[in-house]
């Protein structure tokens, strides 16, 4: 089990619905084959209408989140307005490329609502942005979650359906990955509110 991206493990997934978006992540913080805690946060609220999910090396997850938090706070102060999700998506790409020759070992997913329209973007670790798909995955369990997503996903789902589908996809995917799991959290963002649900999953 080599590779810096497999050291801590973890999986994330993001989906678009009808005027809503959902993000889900597992809760494991481990070191190779050993699990340290089961309540590690991997999805962050950057702004009321923007969520950032990160998978990869846990130290870089925390550092990159702190960096993005700083950027958005400074933007709010300087420009005296909220940042648009498409702008933030671009910012993430630039911030990753700034470290082109010493990258953050993370694969981020950005999700947000811009005037009610869902935005979803994913990146590799050096900032190649891809925002064309309706769902994206990241992390060691990503490929297994893809399978479940393809089976359950349909476009323009309601927030309740989306929550159900993303939860099931995350759990099924993590069940086949030894390095992800130990709980799951689902975030569903609509114009009105952000709901956070903690899933009861295999703790093994």
């Amino acid at each position, binding site marked *: *089990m080599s590779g810096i991206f*497999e050291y801590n*493990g973890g999986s994330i997934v993001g989906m678009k619905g009808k005027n809503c978006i959902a993000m889900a992540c597992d*809760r494991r913080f*481990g070191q*190779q*084959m*050993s*699990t340290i805690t*089961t*309540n590690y*946060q991997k999805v*962050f*609220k950057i702004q009321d209408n923007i969520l950032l999910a990160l998978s990869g090396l846990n130290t870089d997850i925390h550092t990159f*989140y702190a960096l993005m938090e700083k950027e958005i706070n400074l933007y709010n102060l300087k420009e005296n307005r909220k940042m648009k999700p498409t702008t933030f998506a671009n910012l993430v790409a630039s911030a990753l490329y700034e470290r082109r020759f010493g990258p953050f070992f993370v694969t981020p997913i950005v999700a947000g609502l811009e005037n009610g329209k869902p935005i979803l973007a994913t990146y590799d670790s050096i900032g190649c942005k891809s925002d064309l798909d309706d769902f994206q995955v990241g992390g*060691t369990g990503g490929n297994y979650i893809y399978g479940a997503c393809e089976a359950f996903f349909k476009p323009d789902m309601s927030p309740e359906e989306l929550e159900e589908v993303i939860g099931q996809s995350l759990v099924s995917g993590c*069940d*086949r*990955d*030894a*390095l992800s799991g130990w*709980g799951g959290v689902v975030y569903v963002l609509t114009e009105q509110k952000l709901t956070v649900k*903690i899933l*009861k*999953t*295999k*703790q*093994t």
Partner: protein
Amino acid sequence: MFDFDPSTFGLAHTYQKEDKDEINTLKMPSAPQVIYRTLNGPTQTNGGNKLNNFKHGTTTLGFVFKEGILLAVDSRASMGSFLSSEQVRKVIEINEYLLGTMAGGAADCQYWLAYLANHCRTYELKNGSKLSVAAASKFLQGILIGYKNSGLSMGCMIAGSDLSGQHLYYIDNDGMRLKGDIFSVGSGSTYAYGVLDNHYRYEMSLNEAVELGIRAIYHATHRDTASGGVVRVYHIHQNGWTKVHDGIDVVDLHYQFAQQKGLVGDGDEAKQRLF
């Protein structure tokens, strides 16, 4: 008329080199021969870092107590970080009075424990009495020493009942054979030992022993990524072995034990959420 040669029952044959012919007449494939020996030392697996060696990704344990021997195992098989199965049977039923546990290469354990089963039965027929646990484990050790350095991967426990009582042996691919009262084998063994060593007493009742075995395996499956699935429990007593539990899901055990420990929240109580 016969599909074996009756002269093989003669004395001359029992003193000859090992039973390749007899085994073939009993229609069992003969043991693989290593054609050449490596001259460069032991075959390296994962640079020698045992903890990351997924071939030993499992948790199995066994201990001797007043009522006999208890064996408890998990049921997960992993290939790297991919979970290939959650329902593997890691206790191999050699015969009605001998059990073997599987850790390391599944193929190696399955084949050689079946080979051992064959040998035990042959011995029983020839000698009119059952092979002792000590002799059976020593026979397996002999085979594994012969294949030393050729890349076999096995960390098994042989547990059984014979005329002198119930005995537990640990055998591995390095040719080690240890008799003992408490063993745990596999990547999750460190976690299982913590629980096992804390609550083990020789005078435990059967129910207490089963509970301890289940708890130790559960804790290992929770912390170790290469262990999981279900817990299977076997009890060896003077009349052979009994399967106590065929498969208790460790997920259910987690929430059961969490309830007992008072951990019924969502895990975020002690920390400040970042938003």
